């Protein structure tokens, strides 16, 4: 077990608590950078897919994990990010600028939508956002002069400063692009968490009433959370559409939003690691299942098997490990660090029933 002897406030402010921790993440980054030289282009594509899911998941995590607002409508913002990016590129905006702009535009529109929606709490907010996700499909069809409607759109060629990035020609470049976006988004996420805004998010999540008593503007904070969340998810959506190469109104249907929510619950709500672990599960489970059913023979190839397994996984996690995969790992790590002194009830928390919710 490591003890941190802190001699400076910066020990708590900086991103990595110690050199050991820093070197672990540095090693992980080195592995990620080396990956295109090690694995085949098929698996590289799968890893790129994981990274894209992780970006979209980080967006929803900001809203649901940090601010405690459930959204089942984030597929709509993925679509918005994707269509905005491609429409901007078709209008002649260079890819890098279009990509950043699509995030900002999605964020602003998300924040505007949030202003009325955030008067709703809990399950009502979930239903309102679900309606948004279902509506998005129709809106894309109605706006077919811009969106291509049912026929959809093809992703244009991606050029970064004169260098072409094509999934089939140079998958390594695509992978590095996704990796850079992941790194930037994760850094922004961490920075928000260690500044007043991130603490305001946690305050709104845990007790709105006392957040107000501390001077946190609930409506403004929720709107900011929604905006930042939608911006990040929009970036994820843009990458997903561009990576797929073609997309139409059904690419970003509401099942995607539900998958996104399942992903962060399975990964671990409120943890950055949770978004990545969840993304690994979501991206690799279909492949794993198809490999498995291939081996078992045709009889096991049931339609809808994938969604069924997802559902079962989600239920299992909510019942047995509400903190998700990352929460399970944290417990395992403490168990190992304390070995053999860990007790069975180490993580049992006393429930607090005294809450001033009646003031709502």
């Amino acid at each position, binding site marked *: 077990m490591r003890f941190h002897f802190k001699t400076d*406030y910066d020990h708590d402010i900086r991103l990595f608590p110690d050199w050991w921790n820093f070197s672990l993440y540095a090693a992980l980054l080195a592995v990620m950078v080396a990956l295109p030289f090690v694995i085949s282009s098929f698996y590289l594509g799968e890893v790129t897919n994981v990274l894209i899911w992780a970006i979209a998941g980080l967006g929803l995590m900001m809203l649901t994990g940090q601010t405690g607002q459930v959204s089942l409508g984030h597929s709509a913002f993925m679509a918005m990010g994707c269509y905005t990016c491609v429409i901007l590129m078709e209008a002649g905006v260079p890819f890098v600028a279009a990509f950043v702009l699509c995030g900002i535009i999605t964020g602003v529109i998300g924040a505007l939508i949030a202003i009325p929606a955030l008067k709703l709490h809990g399950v009502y907010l979930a239903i309102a956002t679900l309606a948004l996700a279902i509506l998005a499909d129709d809106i894309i069809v109605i706006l077919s002069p811009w969106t291509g409607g049912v026929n959809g759109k093809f992703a244009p060629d991606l050029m970064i400063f004169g260098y072409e990035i094509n999934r089939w020609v140079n998958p390594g470049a695509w992978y590095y692009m996704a990796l850079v976006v992941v790194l930037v988004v994760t850094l922004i996420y961490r920075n928000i968490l260690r*500044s007043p*805004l991130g603490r*305001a998010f946690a305050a709104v999540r845990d*007790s709105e009433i*006392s957040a*107000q008593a501390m*001077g946190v503007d*609930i409506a403004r904070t929720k709107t900011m959370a929604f905006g930042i969340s939608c911006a990040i998810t929009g970036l994820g959506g843009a990458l997903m559409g561009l990576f797929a190469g073609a997309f139409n109104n059904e690419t970003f249907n509401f099942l995607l939003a539900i998958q996104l929510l399942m992903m962060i619950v399975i990964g671990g709500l409120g943890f950055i690691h949770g978004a990545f672990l969840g993304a690994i599960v979501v991206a690799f489970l279909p492949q794993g299942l198809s490999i498995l059913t291939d081996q078992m023979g045709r009889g096991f190839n049931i339609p809808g098997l994938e969604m069924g397994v997802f559902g079962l996984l989600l239920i299992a996690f909510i019942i047995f490990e509400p903190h998700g995969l990352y929460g399970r790992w944290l417990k395992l790590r403490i168990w190992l660090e304390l070995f053999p002194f860990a007790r069975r009830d180490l993580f049992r928390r006393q429930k607090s029933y005294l809450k*001033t919710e009646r003031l709502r």
Partner: protein
Amino acid sequence: MSLLELNNVTLKFGGVTAVNDLTMSVEEGQVYALVGPNGAGKSTVFNMISRFYRPAAGSITFDGHDLLKLKSHEVPQLGIARTFQNIELFDRATVLQNLLVGRHRLRRTTLVEEMFFVGRARAQEREHRLAVEEVIDFLDLQPYRNQMIAGLPYGVRKVVELARALSTKPRLLLLDEPASGLSVEETQDMRWWIDDIRRQMGITVLMVEHDMGLVSKVCDRVLALDGGKKLAEGTPAEVQSHPKVIEAYLGTGAISKTANAKGERV
């Protein structure tokens, strides 16, 4: 002019008059207590000052500002901090993070500065941390600094709530039952802290408290409420011996029987 003034404040919930034509004023530097039986309207007064409830009639002013014009998140900007009767901490955050939320009203960074942690962000974090450390030292919270609220015992949570309120650098501190559920030793600590908050920090304190022992030791003025109405106001001794107060707590006819009962509790 008093620091906090309530003039003819009335609040009704449906047919129930929770606070009825209440007038009171708290002077700067005082420790002022509201006492009264359960349901007397004490916490309702607090919730009106924090603007969770809007009174049907009357006015509330703080240092010349009309509080009724403000939204509840704007009240702390004037320097009013509060604690809650049923602890309202941010459970899934550490003690340190809870106290830093108390500094929220003093932040100066913009969204972009926070997102990229550039400009004033780092200096501001250090500054907030220093201020919070002073509160931690004052209330002896050092052992709990990095612990999650969810695992802390009740007595410590109570102190963390006080610490979070102090972190906002208030001029007026509203304490809703600071000693409820505390042991004898913890109540003693609370007493010294309230004394120090007034003397060293120069913060005015308005509190709701049932423990008359604590009230008589720390308070300058006491106001007794029952059924939303003011029964008596004055020094702790005056209020405790006031016939209407004894009647409210013990019922009619109790005055003659307990004429000389001036113990710790009314």
